């Protein structure tokens, strides 16, 4: 999928950094307002999807390569799991953040905060790159062999749907 419209290209080029910034805001404010890792990850992934939609598959994948997304998608889940395991090695239960510190209420509070931020970061990373992977793997064929699909469905017209490459 790709568009040649200069208006859409210009507007999305301008908007993508703001979308990503908003995603990071949603991640950082998950504790005080609506939001959190899942929503933030989806929003950040949407900016890469927009890149792929507007500038085509190859350009989108050049900005977030397969190697990067394959590496980071499991890294987030691993970070989450390791934070949980660390609490076990510190003498508590799995994901019991209070185990990371002594019984001072302030320290316990801080441990809860940092633990929450850590797991939310893990969720954000995994969701972002999982969604990026889902989109780019599913849309890969459409740029390569659109004419092959048209044989099966004569009425199928991807070019009428704004894909005029």
């Amino acid at each position, binding site marked *: *999928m790709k568009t040649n419209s200069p208006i859409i290209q210009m507007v999305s080029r301008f908007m993508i950094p703001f979308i990503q910034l908003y995603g990071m805001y949603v991640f950082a404010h*998950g*504790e*005080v*307002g*609506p*939001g*959190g*890792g*899942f*929503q933030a990850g*989806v*929003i950040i992934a*949407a900016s890469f*999807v927009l890149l792929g939609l507007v500038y085509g598959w190859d350009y989108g*994948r050049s900005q977030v*390569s*397969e*190697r990067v997304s*394959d590496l980071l*998608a*499991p890294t*987030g*889940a691993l970070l*989450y*799991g390791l934070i*949980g395991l660390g609490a076990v090695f510190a003498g508590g239960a799995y*994901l019991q*953040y209070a185990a990371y510190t002594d019984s001072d209420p302030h320290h316990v*509070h801080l441990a*809860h*905060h940092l*633990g*929450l931020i850590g*797991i*939310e970061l893990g*969720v954000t990373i*995994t*969701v972002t790159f*999982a*969604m990026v*992977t*889902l*989109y780019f*793997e*599913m*849309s*890969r*064929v*459409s740029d390569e*062999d*659109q004419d*092959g*699909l048209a044989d099966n*469905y004569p*009425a*199928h*017209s*991807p070019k009428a*749907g704004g894909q005029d490459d």
Partner: protein
Amino acid sequence: MTFIDDLLLAILVILAVSAVRSRDLLAATAIAGAYSLMMALLWVVMNAMDVAFTEAAVGAGISTVLMLAAISRVGRLEKPAEKSSRPRRVMPVVASVACAAALLYGTADMPRVGDPNSPANSHPGVVKRYLDSADKPDGSLGEVGPPNVVTSVLGDYRGYDTFGETTVIFTAALCVVLLLRHGHGTGGSPARSGPGAPRTLPPVQTPALTAPIAGRRHSSGGDEA
């Protein structure tokens, strides 16, 4: 408030029926996105901001795009339905009407939305700890910290469940890679897709599930394999 509820629910039903009836999958996808948006508004009316946010971002946003990507693979128009015998056309209607009747019968016994005396809202262990005494030391604010109770429950009290959810998302991406990337090599590592490199999965051993996709890939884009 009840008027807004009724209006949103009526729009939901209209959108759902038109999405099912549409033979144009692109239109059906757009309608499903609008359905998610209405659903998000309904969550806002019910004060479930986190759910509304997720519905708007995932339901109306990403899943619509993923559907579009899927449509670009399978074609835009649904095949015309084949003529089937009368019982085969009537049975699904009977089944769905029966399910709807059972669900409506069940909702008659449910408490009103937001009823303070409902079992969910009057249970001491849940409400007192998570919501009611949020500013007391044994409440979620004193125990965990974040003002957003949803985050406390998701990340702290129920952190294990959220870990499971994250794993599910990762597994989805992993499955899509395993199913759809076959035959393309890994774009980032030329060592494995080079001419002399051993093929990790010869076409003969292709699992049955991926055979249609992989077969089409080889016939049309075989120069990369």
